[in-house]
């Protein structure tokens, strides 16, 4: 069994998990903000469109190869010249 500073990796891993749980609990406590009361910012609609558009563009960028394949837009391979045969 691999040991680090006298502790097994599995024990260390469990300690890290417990640390994460405590950290998350504290951050979550901080998330319980006092409710706000008011009106919708008229710019929030445009902001939502901007976020949605960015995510769509990002998705297209990440999946560009798969989309090309799906649409059969992969670059055609040039037929090899006779002499190469």
């Amino acid at each position, binding site marked *: 069994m691999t040991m680090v500073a006298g502790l097994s990796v599995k024990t260390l891993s469990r300690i890290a998990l417990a640390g994460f749980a405590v950290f998350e609990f*504290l951050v979550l406590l*901080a998330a319980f*903000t006092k409710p706000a*009361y008011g009106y919708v910012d008229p710019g929030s609609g445009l902001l939502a469109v901007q976020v949605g558009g*960015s995510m769509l563009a990002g998705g297209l960028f990440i999946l560009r190869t798969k989309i090309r394949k799906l649409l059969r837009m992969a670059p055609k391979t040039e037929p090899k010249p006779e002499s190469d045969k």
Partner: protein
Amino acid sequence: MTSLPRTPWSRSWLEGAGAAILLAPGLLWLQLSQSHVDAFHRLLPLTTVTRALAVDLALLSLASMLVIRGLEAQGAHYTTIAARRSVPVPVWAMWFGLLAARAVAGMIVAQVLWWQQITTARAFLLVAIPLTILWLTSVRGYDYAVRALRFVVLLAGFCILWMIPALIVASFAHQPHDEAQFRKPLPAVNAPHRRIVWLLFDEMSYDQTFAHRWPGLDLPNLDALHAQSVTFSDVQPDGFYTEDVIPSMFLGKPINDVRGTAAGWMIYQSVPNGSWQPFDGNQTLFADAQRDGWTTGALGEYNPYCRILKDQLDSCWMGMPPLPDHFSRDKSTLGNVIAPIAADLDRIAGHRARLQAPAASPDASPLDALGPVRHGRALIGDEAIDLCFLHLPMPHPPGSYDRKTGRIGASGSYIDNLAMADRVLGLLMADLAKTGDAQQTTVILSSDHSWRVWLWRNTFGWTREDELASGHGHFDPRPMLMIRFPGQNAPQEISHPVPLLGMHDLIEQMMTGQIENQQQLDAWAAQQQ
């Protein structure tokens, strides 16, 4: 089942950026909004705050990236399905629950969300519980769900590519340094003279005050003024939002929508889809008052009176909403970078903001803890100011008064706030009575709009009493309008419809001496039909 593959650093950074956007302070969304409404309604400048938000976002994205890499490394130790079931907690479920909770908290601060059904705790549970159930029932399904959610967060990360540049650009806007309060030097007043005191109680409903009052609700000061005033019982509202209605009364023309510029100036639209025009203080009744030789004073919350009417007012005080998460225009960029951490620590410790205690004077009231009341009493007592406009933030929801104990608090109903408005009126009228000009002062009591039941029902702070008082959601659109002329001691009611927008013309005619008594007011009201 094999562990999730380690992702490239660039992808981890994008995912971290997506998580950072969800974890970021809610103020981020308000600062990114193209409407600049937030800059309009805050004390300026906000440049150090905006700069700090850009830094916070960048730091959060790096921190989130490290957390994500850590979680991935953690998962690498549990390679089989049996091993993955033996993990003490489904960490990704907790992580996404945390992201959901913080995102909802941010949207509440940004006022995108205010339905009482949506809370941070519920957002956490709504995400974490289904994922945990999936982890208990199908580790493979859990892994697929985690991958899908990580992909969505990664897509959100693309937004950082325009968000940080947008914040940097906004942080270089030329914003004025607001004075929240000023009093220009004026010559001493030697003899009693005419004054107009205009008290605008935000969201006061004629229906709730006089037509269908809550059983047992005691409003002695409103009743006393009513007994000596001309009361309009069918005022036609000009709009339903304070930021539209009040400037429209100042200008004497309808306003459909108000926004801000990056520099914090007000622009408005008179008709839907019309052109945006800059607000011109020289076209307001305060400018007209000064041209007629009157001195002017105004105070209120939410609208930046001391900025947009700086040249047209001799006395001013404005209470602007404080920035959330300990951000402040008075802090340096570095101070604002660490402000949200201090705010989080405060929330964990359960600290709450305290109201300013009233000064210890014989006339002091617990209600003096409210800035508009404290400064409003001072403005009314300042006899050098001829035209006084007081925008008082009650009975605007949410409830913040206990009518039984007379204490200001964090809860209550619209009915409680109506009682608070009555007590405030009592203080102001008592202060007015002490002035040497009391017998020559015309008092106008109005509201900007009625109680917007349709806006507040089902939001935070809506109470059972509100539900019953509103007749289960019935909206009566009539705002308040009462006028007491000097020496008037009998009530009169004008029951035909009168537009609230007509107040501009009404006050102008009062200042020029065209309307000085009930008969002249009757004639004016008849023309408004």
